[in-house]
């Protein structure tokens, strides 16, 4: 399957003025989301899920893509100027970027972060364009057994490998899987976990409630509990024009970290438990080792901003690979995007690229365009973003909660939905306070029903023979890998104790 022709068609659709407007709004909202600590892109996309009932799929996905990408750009600005990473993956940027800003080199840090994000984002998109059809060709040969094994791998990787503890990760995941099963079982028509057929629960729990509750309410309640909401001191943006922020030497010092970051970010991001945090850290330590200016690390090194920022954006594109080709989410945002696909009645997976090719290629083309829009938004317009950061934080968070509750209430105007929302808010607060990761819970909600469906299909095909999962080579290998990933943290802990 050649990818250039459909991509070209995607560009034609993405350049439609209305679609372009959605893309621009998405980039704008994404940058804002990235700037504000505590608001994840997953949350923003979840808040917008009710609009899937009224807005066409292509426009909505272009908007979501803009938010997803924009958050990564915005996160670097708040990391550099505020020392408050808006995103967990921009923590490394804050390490060096804020120190550079304190030395009066904010312009250099902002510019290398923005150009690096643009460069890596484009490299990641080229890789996505080239490799997605190849992966789809392989994935089309997979049966339900392989899919089920892939989902097991994704769940194990996200809950057991990432996060502070395997036990906490597995609790989060299994709770998510249970929540995902609430409602009527499509195949048998049986009501499950509905407390005696409670009408409000028959359709299952809407993704927007879980995400908004866990991320927005949980985090806000935690901030209230900590009593730490106060406006922080924001470092000023440079007075010189943006195109003069980097000189020839800075470009020379940045391009290699950008390249290395891009190549580290994409493949790791595309792995089931990749995410964007691991590649940014890896990139930081790689640059620290390879840099000619080792003494600058810890005091504000340009390479320490350039590499991780590139890795971050490249990984974000990598996360789209398993989502668009296999229909498997590997991050909270990807899980919410998958839920958005389901809202439109689209089944993500290998058939997505063939059956909904127009939508997917428009989405990819809009990401290319979004990259350019974001570069413009984040370099010349950085002063506007700084003004937003100066808004009183207490009122900002109050406003966010009103928006979040309005979004959930608008789904069915039910007090019961608000009750569920606050239940997830309480869980989110406890998770935040006790260092549980909410990502496995979100992934569990979306993967639970899909995994069960694949399991049932595999069992029907094998005429009830459970050994189908271990006799098929690909499925067996994936399950074996899952077991290793699950057991490894325990062995590691035992070895450490010794």
């Amino acid at each position, binding site marked *: 399957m050649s990818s250039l022709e459909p991509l070209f068609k995607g560009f034609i659709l993405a350049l439609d003025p209305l679609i372009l407007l959605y893309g621009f709004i998405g980039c704008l909202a994404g940058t804002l989301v990235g700037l504000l600590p505590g608001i994840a892109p997953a949350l923003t996309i979840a808040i917008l899920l*009710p*609009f899937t009932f*009224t807005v066409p799929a292509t426009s909505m996905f272009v908007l979501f893509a803009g938010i997803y990408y924009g958050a990564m750009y915005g996160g670097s600005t708040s990391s550099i100027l505020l020392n408050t990473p808006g995103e967990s993956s921009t923590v490394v940027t804050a390490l060096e970027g804020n120190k550079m800003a304190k030395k009066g080199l904010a312009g250099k840090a902002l510019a290398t972060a923005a150009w690096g994000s643009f460069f890596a984002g484009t490299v990641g998109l080229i890789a996505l364009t080239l490799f997605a059809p190849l992966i789809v060709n392989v994935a089309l040969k997979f049966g339900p057994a392989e899919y089920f094994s892939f989902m097991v791998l994704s769940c194990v990787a996200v809950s057991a490998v990432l996060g502070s503890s395997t*036990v*906490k990760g*597995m*609790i989060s995941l*299994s*709770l998510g*899987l*249970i929540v995902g*099963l609430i409602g009527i*079982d499509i*195949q*048998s028509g*049986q009501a*499950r*976990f*509905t*407390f*005696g057929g409670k009408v409000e629960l028959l359709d299952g729990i809407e993704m927007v409630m879980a995400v908004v509750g866990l991320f927005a*309410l949980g985090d*806000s*309640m935690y901030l*209230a*509990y*900590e*009593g730490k*909401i106060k406006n922080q001191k924001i470092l000023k943006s440079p007075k010189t024009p943006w195109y003069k922020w980097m000189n020839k030497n800075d470009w020379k010092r940045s391009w290699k970290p950008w390249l290395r970051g891009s190549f580290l970010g994409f493949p790791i991001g595309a792995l089931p438990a990749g995410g964007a945090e691991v590649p940014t850290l890896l990139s930081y330590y790689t640059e620290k080792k390879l840099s000619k200016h080792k003494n600058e690390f810890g005091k504000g090194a340009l390479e320490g901003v350039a590499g991780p920022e590139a890795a971050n954006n490249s990984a974000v594109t990598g996360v789209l690979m398993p989502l668009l080709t296999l229909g498997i989410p590997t991050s909270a945002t990807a899980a919410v995007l998958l839920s958005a696909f389901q809202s439109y009645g689209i089944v993500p997976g290998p058939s997505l690229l063939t059956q909904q090719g127009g939508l997917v290629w428009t989405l990819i083309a809009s990401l290319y365009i979004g990259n350019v829009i974001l570069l413009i938004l984040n370099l010349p317009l950085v002063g506007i973003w700084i003004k937003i950061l100066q808004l009183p*934080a*207490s*009122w900002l*968070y*109050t*406003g966010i*909660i*009103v*928006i979040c*509750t*309005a*979004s959930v*209430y*608008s789904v069915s*105007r039910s*007090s019961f939905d*608000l*009750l569920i929302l*606050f239940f997830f*808010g309480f869980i989110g607060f*406890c998770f935040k*306070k*006790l260092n549980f990761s909410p990502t496995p819970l979100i992934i569990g909600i979306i993967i*639970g029903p899909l*995994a*069960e469906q694949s*399991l*049932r299909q595999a*069992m*029907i095909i094998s005429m*009830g023979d459970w050994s189908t999962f271990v006799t098929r080579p690909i499925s067996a290998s994936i399950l074996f890998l899952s077991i290793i990933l699950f057991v490894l943290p325990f062995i590691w802990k035992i070895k450490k104790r010794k």
Partner: protein
Amino acid sequence: MKSFHFSIFLIILCGLAIWQATLIPKSGLVDSVGAKNFPYFIVTLFVIFSIIYFFQELSFYKKRETLKKYSKQNVLFFVSGCFILISLSSILGFFISSIFSSILIARSFGIQINLLSLRNCFFITLSVWILFSVILGLQLGPFFKFLS
């Protein structure tokens, strides 16, 4: 909320999950997995890891810190705000109940309750209501539910 208390909360959730799993009726369809097996497996997983967590936390229970007074107050304001929204939204509609709720939530973030904060909460809720209901076409219900 201490981790030990959360582990007890998880055990209660386990009890609920087991109770609900036992209520799933047997499927009439010929299906080797059925509607029960997958939920049983997931609930078992949840129970096992919750029990492990409970015993882990039990051993650390005495070392835990106590909550600060202001934190408790803030959380109380936050929860009250949420409770007001849940209980009043069906009677007064989203707009009015959200104003009352947001005052308490703003208080939990350290803002004093006075006419100025009431005005701010009114305008925040009004802007959100206009954005959702008028501009974006998502229904938040009537402005004053009790009048309609």
